[in-house]
Structures are given as structure tokens and as C-alpha cells.
């Protein structure tokens, strides 16, 4: 079978395509069709020849097979040091073989590659910093995901996810109207406690444009209003775009580079339309990476930068605390031992290691570092799409063990996770292993600790 009806090489192009995928419970039919999907070896090889130049080619070529990457990989460690989880082995036995065979690989082989690319690597890029040659298997797995996607070998949820981006420019089916309604509704709810609170939509030339993860609009809109409260208290001149507010990119997890470009073009379009001085991104690692770190390249921006200066939420909070825009009531600081999850996407891959420490200095009395931490920190266990793929839930649950050990070793029962994906993984970790921990984003914590200026409080 060259192509299935829902599992095929074509990306989602219409609501009908998306509904057909969504109607397939757990991707049962999708994965059954995948077993029959033809591999277009010619196209695969042509793509490789066109896109695999110096860097990846040399990486594959000169790997010294020294195994120094083994211990760098948390998946290797938590899977009983299984040699098949050594990063170098994982990439050589998948991408390496495809290249060796010039694309002449079987359907079964492609499915093995898919399982490896999405359940044995979270693209956390930790291995890359452990290799003497600087070979980054995370980057190569990203590349492999792109090849697999182009041939239709992509997990069901991620085909849906990138389809959502193609149709709605958001990882979930949230339309412009629904988004604006949600903002209005959330402000109405909060007005009693926070008079004069607003979420200015589409305000031009503001100091800050705030952008989010679609899940906030869809599932926890209180996060949006919390951001609004904090901007309000900090006295920021800010706005949100009605269109182009979604920073995430499940298409990045899926390797659907075309959808990545479509998504980020919308976001940059909003920046160009509203001309804010800066953009502040919500507490999400992959959203930041997609829009700020990788996005410029998808959009073809030669300077590798988004149209305006972009800050992750931890940067804005650190700055607001340091400059006194936000003041913490010292009596309300966190007294119990607390630890911080460093997101791979904005710490190792974007250099924001210090912001978290600055924030902790302001809000916590007993901050405990995980070991290792900062750019050497381990992935939460659910990165790169791992959290959301049903097919790999079992493997994902095993992957959570590293974070469990790291958290337990700090002695803290409270974890601050300023990243959606890490937050999810830590929530699931508690559900799976019941180690008695709590976890939180920064926003609700900060609101509880703030010194609120008199004039912003409700009049009795």
C-alpha cells in the first residue's frame, strides 16, 4: 500500500483530515495502516543528499565510537544501562543505516526508527555536550524525525499536533474568537479581586507583547489571568495579539518543518503588526525554543533572531524582581526546602541558567539545587513530545525515574517547574511513583508572595 487513508505522507490539509485522525481511537487504525505504508526510497535519498551536508555527515562519519555519550543520556541510565540506549548507537543504527543504505530501507526498519526517534530520545541535547567531537545526537534525531515525517512514519498524536498548527496556527483547535473570548472571560472573573485588571488585545506599540502555550487558552486559562495580574502589578504596558499568540510548535516535535514555518510566521507576523518593544514568553521551554531559538531559521531570518527581542518568563520575572517592579513580601517567601527544574530548552539550549537562580534568591529561603543542574541538568523525562505519545507511555514512565531520583536527592518536596512540559512530567511522576511532592509554575507562587501597591487593591 503506497499510502493509507489516515497514515500517509501527506500532511493534514483540512478539517476532514484532522477529524479522521481524531476519530481513530488511540491511533489504532493509523498504526495498522503504517505497517503497510510504502517507503519512497528515492525521495528519501534525494532529501538526504540535499539536506545532509558537512555537519551531520561528518558527525556520522567521524564518531569515534568511544561511548562517552552513554552516561550523558538519562534514558540509558534509567533503562538499566542498556547498550541499545547509547546515544551514538541509537543514531548510528537508525539515521546511520538509512544513509549507508542510501534510503533503501524497509517499512519495518522505518517503524523501528520512529520508535527510536520518539521514545529513545527527547532531543534534550545533553549528549552533545559530552562528546569530545561535539556530536549532538539530539540535533541528529531532530533531523531524522524530519525524514521520518516526510515518509509518514510519525506518531499519531504528533501528526494531529502538527495538523492543528497547519489548520489553527495553534497546537489545539483554539480560534482567534475563542482566544479573545477566553481572555475577556478570565478578566471578568478576576475583576472583583483585581479592579482595573485588563488583558489588552492587539494594542500597538506596547512595551511587551505576551505570548503563550495554547494549552493555557484551552485548558488552564487561569494562567493567562495570572500573567495579567503580574504585568498589572509590575505596571507594564503590555498586550496580547488576537492572532499569533501561540508560541508552541508540536510540528517541531513531529519534524514537520513546513508547519513549523507556517506557525512561526504567524507569531512573527503578530510582532511585526503590533510593533512591541519586547516579547515575553510564557513558562514553557519548547515554546521558547520554537519561537525564539529555532523559529528564526524556519522563517529564513539570516540573523537568526526573531523580529523583536524575546524573553522567556524566567527572564522577565528575574528582571522585574531585580529592578523592583515586583516586590516580594519577605514574610511570605517559601520557607520549606524547594528545588527548581531547569528546562533543557531554555537552559541548555538558550543560556538562561542564571535567571532561575536569581528568582529563587528572591522567593525561597531554602533553595536546593538538583545535581546535576543548569546546562548539565537532565531532561524532565517527557521532553521532545514524549509526554504526549500514548504509544510510548510505558517508556515515558520509565524515563521519569531520573527526575524522581534527582528530586528525592534534594530532600525538597516542592518543585518549581517554569516549563509546561516539565510541569506535566513532574505531575505524572507524582502520579506514577507517589513520592509525595508538589509542583508549581512561577505565576501562582509569585502572586501569593507579592507586595501589592495600595491603589491596585479593591476599595472596601
Amino acid at each position, binding site marked *: 500500500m503506497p499510502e493509507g487513508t489516515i497514515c500517509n505522507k501527506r500532511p493534514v490539509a483540512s478539517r476532514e483530515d484532522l477529524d479522521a485522525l481524531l476519530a481513530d481511537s488511540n491511533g489504532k487504525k493509523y498504526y495498522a495502516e503504517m505497517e503497510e505504508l510504502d517507503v519512497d526510497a528515492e525521495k528519501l535519498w534525494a532529501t538526504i543528499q540535499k539536506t545532509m551536508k*558537512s555537519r551531520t555527515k*561528518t558527525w556520522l562519519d567521524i564518531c569515534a565510537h568511544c561511548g562517552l555519550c552513554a*552516561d550523558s543520556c538519562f534514558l540509558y541510565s534509567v533503562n538499566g544501562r542498556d547498550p541499545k540506549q547509547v546515544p551514538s548507537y541509537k543514531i548510528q543504527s537508525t539515521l546511520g543505516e538509512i544513509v549507508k543504505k542510501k534510503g533503501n530501507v524497509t517499512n519495518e526498519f522505518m517503524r523501528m526508527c520512529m520508535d527510536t526517534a520518539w521514545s529513545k530520545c527527547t532531543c534534550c541535547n545533553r549528549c552533545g555536550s559530552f562528546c569530545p567531537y561535539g556530536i549532538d545526537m539530539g540535533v541528529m534525531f531532530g533531523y531524522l524525525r524530519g525524514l521520518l515525517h516526510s515518509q509518514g512514519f510519525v506518531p499519531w498524536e504528533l501528526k494531529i499536533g502538527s495538523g492543528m498548527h497547519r489548520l489553527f496556527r495553534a497546537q489545539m483547535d483554539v480560534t482567534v474568537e475563542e482566544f479573545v473570548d477566553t481572555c475577556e472571560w478570565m478578566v471578568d472573573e478576576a475583576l472583583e479581586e483585581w479592579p482595573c485588571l485588563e488583558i489588552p488585545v492587539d494594542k500597538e506599540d506596547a512595551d511587551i507583547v505576551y505570548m503563550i502555550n495554547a494549552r493555557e487558552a484551552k485548558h488552564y486559562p487561569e494562567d493567562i489571568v495570572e500573567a495579567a495580574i503580574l504585568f498589572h502589578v509590575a505596571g507594564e504596558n503590555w498586550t496580547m495579539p488576537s492572532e499569533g499568540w501561540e508560541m508552541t510548535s508540536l510540528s517541531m516535535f513531529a519534524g514537520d518543518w513546513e508547519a513549523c514555518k507556517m506557525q512561526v510566521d504567524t507569531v512573527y507576523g503578530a510582532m511585526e503588526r503590533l510593533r512591541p518593544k519586547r516579547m515575553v514568553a510564557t513558562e514553557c521551554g519548547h515554546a521558547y525554543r520554537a519561537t525564539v531559538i529555532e523559529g528564526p531559521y524556519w522563517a529564513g531570518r539570516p540573523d537568526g533572531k526573531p523580529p523583536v527581542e524575546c524573553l522567556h518568563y524566567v527572564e522577565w520575572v528575574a528582571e522585574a524582581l531585580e529592578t523592583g517592579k515586583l516586590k516580594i513580601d519577605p514574610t511570605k517567601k517559601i520557607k520549606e526546602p524547594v528545588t527548581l527544574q531547569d528546562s533543557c530548552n531554555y537552559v541548555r539550549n538558550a*543560556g538562561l541558567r542564571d535567571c532561575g537562580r536569581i528568582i529563587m534568591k528572591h522567593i525561597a529561603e531554602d533553595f536546593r539545587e538538583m545535581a546535576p543542574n543548569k546546562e548539565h541538568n537532565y531532561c524532565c523525562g517527557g521532553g521532545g513530545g514524549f509526554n504526549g505519545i500514548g504509544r510510548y507511555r510505558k517508556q515515558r514512565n520509565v524515563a521519569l525515574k531520573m527526575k524522581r531520583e534527582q528530586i528525592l536527592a534534594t530532600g525538597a518536596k516542592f518543585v518549581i517547574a517554569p516549563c509546561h512540559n516539565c510541569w506535566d512530567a513532574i505531575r505524572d511522576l507524582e502520579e506514577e511513583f507517589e513520592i509525595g511532592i508538589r509542583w508549581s509554575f512561577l505565576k501562582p507562587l509569585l502572586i501569593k508572595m507579592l507586595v501589592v501597591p495600595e491603589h491596585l487593591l479593591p476599595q472596601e
Partner: protein
Amino acid sequence: MYEILTGPLLWIAFAVFFVGLAARVVLYFLGLDWRLDRVAYKPHMAYGLKGAFRSVYRWLLPFGTYSWRAKPIFTVMFFAFHIGLVIVPLFLEGHAVMIRNGLGINWPAMPQILADVLAIAALAGGLGIAVRRLVLPEVRILTDFKDIMLLVLILTLLASGIIATYHTANYSFWITLHVLCGVIVLLTAPFTKLSHIALFFCTRIQLGMDFGIKRGGMKSNFDW
């Protein structure tokens, strides 16, 4: 045999070595592509070079990186192996004489005792690396025939050189074997994993630039 090996063949081998490796370096940098690699090399060259320098420097320094510190035994073996393999061939008295005679330049040489220590340390390090490769499952799974052959070649090169220096009984056999291995190394370097002699710097510079430009280098330095 020895005359052929140290005659024109040696010069051909040197030519292949230098021209081949130079070509690989040039091709590597020509093949970098800001769109495919997703790194804006040119507009942020200063940040890139800073990142590149840091990354090369820290990795050339024993225990200079988190990774080297995480594997101290391997690190010691690795540096013993590589320091010996780079320094001894360049400044051994016997080699210096050949260079002086061949090229007529005043080539410096190191004391024999230092060369001995470095060469023996390199051999020990290399043997350690070979044992590690066979013993550790995480390295064994990566090891292929070429890796073994390469190690055999380099260890033979080292051992024959050391033996030739001290066991004059079979001197001509050992020295011929030594030169043969040396010639094979020079001839194959550009086409095998030995190309890392030059490409190590290329890939390290590239990832250093990646971290220096794109992955946060403008905000804070990556602490290798």
C-alpha cells in the same frame, strides 16, 4: 624495504596526509550552511568565535570539561594516548634527524627519556582504551571492525617504535614495521576516522559556534 618506505613512499604519504586533511577541512567549512545547520554563523561571528575558542580550549585541556571530569580514568588514558601520539612523532630525536637530513631544516628534538616516558604512557593509554572498548558493553556495542583495525594499527606503530629503540637484536624488523605503520597512518588518515586529527577542530569549532551564537552564547557562556 626500509629504503622504499623511507624514500619516495614516505614523501607521497606525507603529501596525501597534508593535502587530504587540508581538503577535508576546507570542504567541511564550505559545506556548513546556516539554513541547514540553523546557526547564523556570519552575522554573529564574534560570539561564534568566542564560543568556538572556549569549546576547543576546554576540550583540549585534561579535565577541562564536565565530560572529562565525569570519566577521570578514560580521560587520563585518552590524554596519555593522544599527547604521546602527537608530541613524540614530532620531536623524537630519531625523527628530527630524518627531518634535518631530508629537509635540511634545524628541527628541534626532545630528550630521549621524555620521549620514552610519553611513548610508553601512550602505549599504556592505548591498551587501556582497547581493553575498555572490549570490556564495557556500552562501548562494545559501538565497536566495529574498522575501530579494532585502527587501534591495532596505532598500537603496533607505538609498540614497534618503542621496541626498535631498545631491542637492537631485531632492529631492522621492528623499525621496518614501525615505518610501515607510520606510512599506513599517513596514507589512510584523510579517508578514515583518523581524519579527526583535523576534523576534531572543525566539529568542535562548529558546535562551539552553535552554542556561542544560537544556543544562549549571547546570554551566558556554556560551561563545557
